[in-house]
């Protein structure tokens, strides 16, 4: 692997790495034929981000011939290469990324002003491909906005706020902070912003749904989008399905996939084999304690390339779901009587079903299909059940 980034693109690369650092602790590097992929996933696997830099982004782009190379490394050490973000644009003229296979080192060389040469030889670990499977094109709700709009929206929420809820109608989008049901109602403060559809570049609502997801990762993407001036697209379907935030340019693509809080009892019913009629949905569906996991299959295929991997089919989702181990519940839950009853039944009837969870558990199955028949048939699955994204701080 031998890549050269010049001029303003160095800052774009640096910003991408900084926004990936909001997601997880490790950076997955995978040079592919069609793009250099930089990815990260958080420890609870409820958030995933991927940047793809096309060969045209680089002034030189050569990837290892023969077998595919991919690695992961501590994102902090890569961040250290681009530490002085503010002065980067002024001081760095060229960034050279080179792989030294013999020494197992990935070398970042920054050619700076005044002839100063900064060389960082970073150690890495071999890794499997990290690939969340999602299909943003099939989402019912699609929006696109200038980063400024979202930055101005998010600024009204305190930095400590963890989750926001986005609700949509045909004409409007509401963004409000998610108030925990357990939080003392007298102390809770609700902030809600209403954005009219004409503030967006694109506003297509197919389903009047609302989703709740983590704000931290969104902020990370906003930093990137704002500095590059790229519009942000947002795709989502229903509670429990991930929300996808994307930035796209002719030479780069960034996708942030975030788990959303699920609260649809019917959805859960689909995934369980119980004949028991689910309780009616509570008046406020965000305050619902009932939660499901949505599945994202993580493809650790031998063959590289996200393009080769299709979205998970519902059948895959269901089949792997039942194998999901019961995860430890991280929060004390307060239930209505009905829910408690229901849980009791859960324990008897459905031991293989995950317990009700307060917040989203996004499930990443790790499937290893034969390279010829990829997306449909999982051969093995190493499941990791995500716990709460709150744990990931």
């Amino acid at each position: 692997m031998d890549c050269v980034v010049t001029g303003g693109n160095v800052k774009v690369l640096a910003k991408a790495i900084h926004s990936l650092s909001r997601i997880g602790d490790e950076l997955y590097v995978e040079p592919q034929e069609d793009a250099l992929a930089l990815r990260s996933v958080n420890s609870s696997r409820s958030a995933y981000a991927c940047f793809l830099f096309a060969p045209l982004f680089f002034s030189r782009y050569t990837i290892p011939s023969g077998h595919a190379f991919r690695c992961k490394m501590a994102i902090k050490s890569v961040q250290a290469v681009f530490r002085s973000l503010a002065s980067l644009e002024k001081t760095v003229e060229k960034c050279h990324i080179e792989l030294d296979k013999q020494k197992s080192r990935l070398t970042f060389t920054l050619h700076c002003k005044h002839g100063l040469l900064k060389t960082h030889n970073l150690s890495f670990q071999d890794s499997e491909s990290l690939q969340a499977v999602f299909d943003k094109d099939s989402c019912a709700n699609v929006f696109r906005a200038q980063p400024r709009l979202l930055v101005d929206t998010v600024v009204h929420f305190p930095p400590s706020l963890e989750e926001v809820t986005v609700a949509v109608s045909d004409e409007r989008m509401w963004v409000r902070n998610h108030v925990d049901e357990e939080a003392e109602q007298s102390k809770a403060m609700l902030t809600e912003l209403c954005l009219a559809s004409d503030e967006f570049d694109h506003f297509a609502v197919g389903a009047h749904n609302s989703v709740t997801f983590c704000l931290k990762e969104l902020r990370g993407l906003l930093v990137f989008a704002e500095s590059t001036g790229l519009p942000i697209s947002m795709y989502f379907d229903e509670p429990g399905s991930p929300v996808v935030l994307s930035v796209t340019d002719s030479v780069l693509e960034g996708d942030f996939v975030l788990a959303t809080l699920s609260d649809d009892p019917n959805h859960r019913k689909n995934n369980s084999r119980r004949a028991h009629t689910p309780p009616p949905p509570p008046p406020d569906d965000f305050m619902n304690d009932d939660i499901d996991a949505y599945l994202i299959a993580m493809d650790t295929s031998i063959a590289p390339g996200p393009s080769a991997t299709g979205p998970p089919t519902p059948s895959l989702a269901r089949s792997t779901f039942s194998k999901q181990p019961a995860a430890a519940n991280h929060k004390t839950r307060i239930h209505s009587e009905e829910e408690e009853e229901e849980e009791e039944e859960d324990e008897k009837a459905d031991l293989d079903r995950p317990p009700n969870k307060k917040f989203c558990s996004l499930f990443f199955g790790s499937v290893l299909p034969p390279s010829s028949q990829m997306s449909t048939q999982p051969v093995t699955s190493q499941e990791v059940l995500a716990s709460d994204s709150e744990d990931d701080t």
Partner: protein
Amino acid sequence: MLECQNGNQAVVEETSLLMIFVTFNLSIIALFALPSLCQPNILVTCLHFSATMPLSTQSQADEEQYVFVASLDNARNLSNILKAITFKDHAIFSATPNGLKVTVEDSKCLQANAFIQADIFQEFTIREDLVGFQVNLTVLLDCLNIFGGSTVPGVSTALRMCYKGYGYPLTLFLEEGGVVTVCKINTQEPEEPIDFEFCSSNVTNKVILQSESLKEPFSELDMTSEVLQITMSPSQPYFRLSTFGNSGNAHYDYPKDSDMVELFKCTKTQTNRYKMSLLKPSTKALALSCKVSVRTDSRGFLSLQYLVRNDDGQICFVEYYCCPDEEVE
């Protein structure tokens, strides 16, 4: 201990009211901002108020007792440069007719000297060839910043520093906006500074750089690395800083013809390692300076000389000596 001098009754009454108010405020400041003042290092801190210039009210008799007196219109010219060498509490002061030298040492391996020439001071009187004493540097800096160390232009703290001789405290008179604080800092037996025997005749390699070019590398040094390795060579890589941290190694290379390099005089390739923990404090000096001279001698000892320009455009020097790390592979 408050004094009012020189003024008609009305003025005194007015200032008396003011006095109480200000005294109250300042004691609050002293309590919260200066915990080190509560140590036995300091004898007295008191406030004086006067309608006249308080620093000139010392009686002639007092004046004659001092073996060393130095005044500055702007105490920041002293405090800034002392900050560049603050990494240990004990500072050895040696005053000669040429000026003041302040020395701080660490682990017998690192020595930092700040030189403040006599002409930087508005008044510099010394009655002996050499006056030496040792004080707690943190306490001294706290005293010099007793008025908050404001950086607002036009607002400065005036300083008068007096020392009566062996066994006496170092007395500081600080004045800002007509308010005077007197600080007495206990002095200690001066230790003999280590002689690093670094003489210019033994210097093998010398590079003078504009500090600007070193500030970024020093600010982003990988602190997980135990050592900072400095390579100086007449051939490539000319001047190289290296760290060896948890996540890999990093090199910073300066070509000898860079416009940031003012002088490049290397005779022999030398690679030495210095403890990162020892060299890290020199970043403070680097931040203040505009030029730095990096020299190594035949034994691998490192000398870093920083040229510091103060608020008034005058030049002072800060110097660091560091022993090489023995465990070189």
